[in-house]
C-alpha cells in the first residue's frame, strides 16, 4: 500500500484531501442552512426542535455526522501541514512584493480564514452540539412526545449581542473562504471545462460566498431582535 500513502502525501494528493473534505463540508452547509431555516417559523421553536430531534436520531444522518466531524479534523490538519509546507518553499521572503497585482486576497489567505472558521466551529459546537449531547437542555412537549428544547439554547445564545456579532463576522470569513475554496476544490480534482467551470464559479461566488453566509448570519440577528422584542 506504499503507493497510497505516497499519492496522498504528494503535493497534489494533499490538495485532493483538502478538496474532497472541503467540498463535502460545503455540501453539508446547504443541508445545515436549509434545516436551520425552521428558526424563522415563529412557532415558538417547535419545527426547529422536531428537526433537531430528527437530525440526532436518524441512523443515516448520524453516520454522515461522524464523516463530517472527521472531515473537519482532516481538513484542518491538512490545512496546517500544507500551509507550513508552502511557507517553507520560500525561506527568504521578498523585501517588496505586490501580490495584490496578480491574485485575490482570499486565495492567498485561506489559512487565516480557515483558522477563523476552526475557532468558530469550536465555539459553535460548544454552544449547541455539546449542550445537545452532554448538557442539560430543558424539555419541551409536543403532542405528548418529549423533545429536547434546543430552541431555548439558541435563544439564550443569540440573545447576547457579542455572540451575534461574532457570528456575523465568522460568516464573512466563511464567505471569503468559499469564494475561493469552492471553485478551487474542483480545479484541484482536475474538473475544469469550458461549459461547467463558469457554472461552478457562479455557484461559488454567489451561492456559497454570499447567499449561504447571509442566510446563516440572518439567523442570530433575527433571534436577537425577537428575544429583545424589537420585532
Amino acid at each position: 500500500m506504499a503507493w497510497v500513502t505516497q499519492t496522498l502525501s504528494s503535493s497534489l494528493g494533499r490538495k485532493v484531501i483538502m478538496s474532497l473534505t472541503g467540498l463535502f463540508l460545503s455540501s453539508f452547509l446547504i443541508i445545515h442552512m436549509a434545516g436551520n431555516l425552521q428558526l424563522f417559523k415563529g412557532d415558538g421553536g417547535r419545527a426547529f426542535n422536531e428537526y433537531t430531534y430528527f437530525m440526532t436520531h436518524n441512523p443515516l444522518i448520524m453516520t454522515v455526522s461522524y464523516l463530517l466531524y472527521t472531515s473537519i479534523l482532516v481538513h484542518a490538519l491538512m490545512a496546517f501541514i500544507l500551509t507550513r509546507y508552502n511557507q517553507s518553499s520560500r525561506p527568504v521572503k521578498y523585501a517588496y512584493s505586490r501580490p495584490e497585482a496578480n491574485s485575490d486576497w482570499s486565495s492567498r489567505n485561506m489559512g487565516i480564514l480557515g483558522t477563523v472558521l476552526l475557532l468558530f466551529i469550536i465555539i459553535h459546537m460548544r454552544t449547541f452540539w455539546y449542550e445537545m449531547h452532554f448538557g442539560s437542555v430543558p424539555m419541551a412537549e409536543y403532542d405528548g412526545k418529549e423533545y429536547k428544547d434546543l430552541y431555548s439554547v439558541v435563544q439564550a445564545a443569540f440573545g447576547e449581542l457579542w455572540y451575534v456579532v461574532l457570528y456575523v463576522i465568522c460568516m464573512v470569513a466563511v464567505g471569503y473562504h468559499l469564494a475561493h475554496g469552492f471553485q478551487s476544490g474542483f480545479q484541484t480534482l482536475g474538473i475544469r471545462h469550458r461549459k461547467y467551470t463558469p457554472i461552478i464559479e457562479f455557484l461559488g461566488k454567489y451561492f456559497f460566498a454570499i447567499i449561504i453566509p447571509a442566510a446563516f448570519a440572518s439567523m442570530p440577528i433575527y433571534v436577537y431582535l425577537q428575544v429583545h422584542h424589537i420585532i
Partner: protein
Amino acid sequence: MKINLKVWRQKSSNAAGKLVEYQLDNVSEDMSFLEMFDVLNDSLTRKGEDPVTFDHDCREGICGMCSMYINGRPHGPQTGATTCQLHMRSFSDGDTIVVEPWRARAFPVIKDLMVDRTAFDRVIQAGGYVSVNTGSAPDANEILIPRSIADEAMDAAACIGCGACVAACKNASAMLFVSAKVSQLAILPQGKAEHKERAERMVAQMDAEGFGACSFTGACSVECPKSISLDHIARMNREYLGAQLTTENVQG
C-alpha cells in the same frame, strides 16, 4: 530620466545579501530594463566595483533567462512580457525601483540577481520528453491532430521555462511550468503513449525539488510572460490522479 535603484546584492549562495541603493541620472526611456542595468554595471566597473550579476541571453523575449523581481512583481509591471521586453518608459522620472532575485527554496541565489534554475531541468529530465525515436518528419496529415488540440499544445509549448510562475506564487509552486510541459505532451499523439508515467515522474520530481503546492491563486498565469493558462494545471491534476489510480506502479 533619473532612476533610483535598490538592488539585491549577494556575493555567493551562502553569503548574506542586502538591498543596495544606486542612482542613475541619464536613463533614456527607450532603454530596455536590462540596458539600464548595463549602464549601471558600466559605471560600477569604471569605479572598480563589482558589477551586478544577472541572467540574460536572447534579449528578445524567447529564452526565459532574464529573471528579475521588479517592484514587487516578476518581470516588472507589464503583463505578458519578460524583463528584457520591459522598457524604461514604463517608469517615471525619479522613481525608486526595487530589484530582487526570484525567491524559492528550489531556486537558490547564485550571485546577486542570478538564481539556480536547474531544478526545472531535472523536472524535464524526469519525463518531459518522448522517449521513442520519432525518425524523420512524417508526411503532412499522416498523424491527424484536430486544430483545437494543435492550438492548445502550441499554447502550452510557448512556456520558456523562465520561472516567473514560481517567483509569483505565494507557495513558490512550479505547477504552471510543470503542467504546461505535461499538458503539451499528453494531448499530442506522440506524447500520449507515456502520459501516465510522465505525470507521475514529473510531479514526483517537482515535489522532490521543494516547490510548494498549488493554492490556485492564479498569480502564476497573470505573471507568466507567455500567459500560460490555468487549464493546464487542471489537466495535470487529472493526469496525475488518473495515473496514480491506474498504473501498475506500486512503489510510488
